[in-house]
């Protein structure tokens, strides 16, 4: 059977377990994913180019299906990066994890992530996590994780962390001899490396690492 090619820019039916890495290179993404029963989808979205982007993706999960979505976002000065994500748990025992990690050098990173668990989708499990580090006073970021729950027997949670560096963390690292720049690098890379490590495509992985390493954080 010929394997269907998954494309972030079109609608997709996930009939086998899939792992995909996508580097965002176009300004607009409008797509949806239908994950069939007992199938899983791991998507790494890497949005680090110096472009404005608007990502609109809907995920529909069937029985015992699984979604792992990781987004790495790097916003340069004057960039506007928007993410509108809908995760629909339409059947029981569906599972989703959304993890967004961003570095904002002076643009906008806006995230709206909605997880819906409909009535009857019992034992479903969803979590949305977001962490964006603003590296300048003009950087503007927002994470809005929203949970719509219509079933009792479910797990649902979210967390969002926005802002600059924690002064106490910087003091601790510098008190051991690291320069302020190195301490900032350690914290910034620390938030984003775990997601980069999930990338399977070595070319995209190297590209992402090079881009993050080249940032000046002094």
């Amino acid at each position, binding site marked *: 059977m010929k394997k269907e090619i998954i494309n972030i820019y079109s609608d997709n039916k996930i009939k086998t377990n899939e792992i995909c890495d996508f580097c965002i290179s176009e300004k607009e993404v409008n797509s949806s994913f239908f994950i069939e029963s007992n199938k899983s989808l791991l998507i790494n979205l890497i949005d680090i180019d110096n472009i404005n982007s608007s990502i609109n993706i809907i995920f529909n999960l069937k029985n015992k299906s699984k979604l792992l979505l990781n987004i790495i976002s790097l916003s340069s000065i004057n960039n506007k990066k928007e993410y509108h994500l809908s995760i629909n748990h339409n059947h029981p025992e569906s599972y989703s994890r959304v993890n967004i990690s961003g570095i904002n050098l002076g643009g906008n990173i806006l995230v709206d992530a909605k997880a819906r668990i409909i009535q009857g989708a019992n034992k479903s499990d969803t979590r949305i996590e977001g962490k964006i580090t603003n590296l300048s006073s003009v950087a503007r970021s927002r994470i809005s994780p929203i949970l719509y729950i219509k079933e009792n027997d479910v797990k649902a949670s979210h967390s969002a962390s926005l802002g600059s560096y924690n002064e106490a963390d910087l*003091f601790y690292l510098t008190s051991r001899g690291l320069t302020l720049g190195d301490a900032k690098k350690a914290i910034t890379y*620390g938030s984003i490396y775990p997601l980069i490590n999930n990338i399977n495509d070595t070319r995209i992985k190297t590209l992402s690492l090079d881009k993050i390493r080249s940032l000046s954080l002094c």
Partner: protein
Amino acid sequence: MLKINDLNVSIDSSSILNGINLEISKGDIVALLGPNGHGKSTLFHSIMGNPRYVVNKGNIIFNGEDITKMDVSTRSKKGLFLAFQNPPEISGVMTLDFFKNSLNSHLDKPIKLLDFYKKTTQAYEDVGLDSSFIERNLNEGFSGGEKKRNEIIQLQLLSPTLAMLDEIDSGLDVDALSSIAKVINNMHEKGTTFILISHYDKLFSLINPNKTFVIINGKVALSGDGLLAKRISKEGYSFIEKEFKIKIEKKEKQVSIGSCGVKQVI
């Protein structure tokens, strides 16, 4: 080695230290005591250069050099070390990478991998912590005692000339406290000078301080030899009010009740 002259420090416009004067010589083991909230930890943070603590007046001389305006990492490289009362948990920063970078920042040439392995393995063994902790994120998910032992490991790796240990004994069981006291005594024999904050006499029975400074109301109200620390450990601070007519101001900590997240349910 360390001389502090008329040090006045404030945090968020609130005055904490009001003219600290003290002098510490090479090889001293100093007990820094005082009631809660009177400025002991503030003094440590000020010596280490925490930017949150503003020096309004006075200076800090370390090995003949005025370090009052020096940045934190330079102070570390000059030989100062602070073991934190509450070491922060820093997710994503692997302990191994952090230890290596810290150590290398004090060296002219990066340490050889084998030497680093030997050094860290020994340090973990000395404090009775499993060396697999080195693969975990810095202090993340560590218990109170594990965090304190992690501080002592860093103390061993960096071998400072002056080490300030802020309540290093809190959260430690008896065996762990003995191991850490052994490390401190060994390092003292090799030349490290120590300033210790502790509220318990157990530590001072394992490590014998030769000097005591008591900070009350943001000033060194009383100083003496090691016996003063032992007396305070037994009797508390009330005798100071009676014998020395020093009024101890009550310090009440402001408590945050925190904030809640936003949840939308339909």
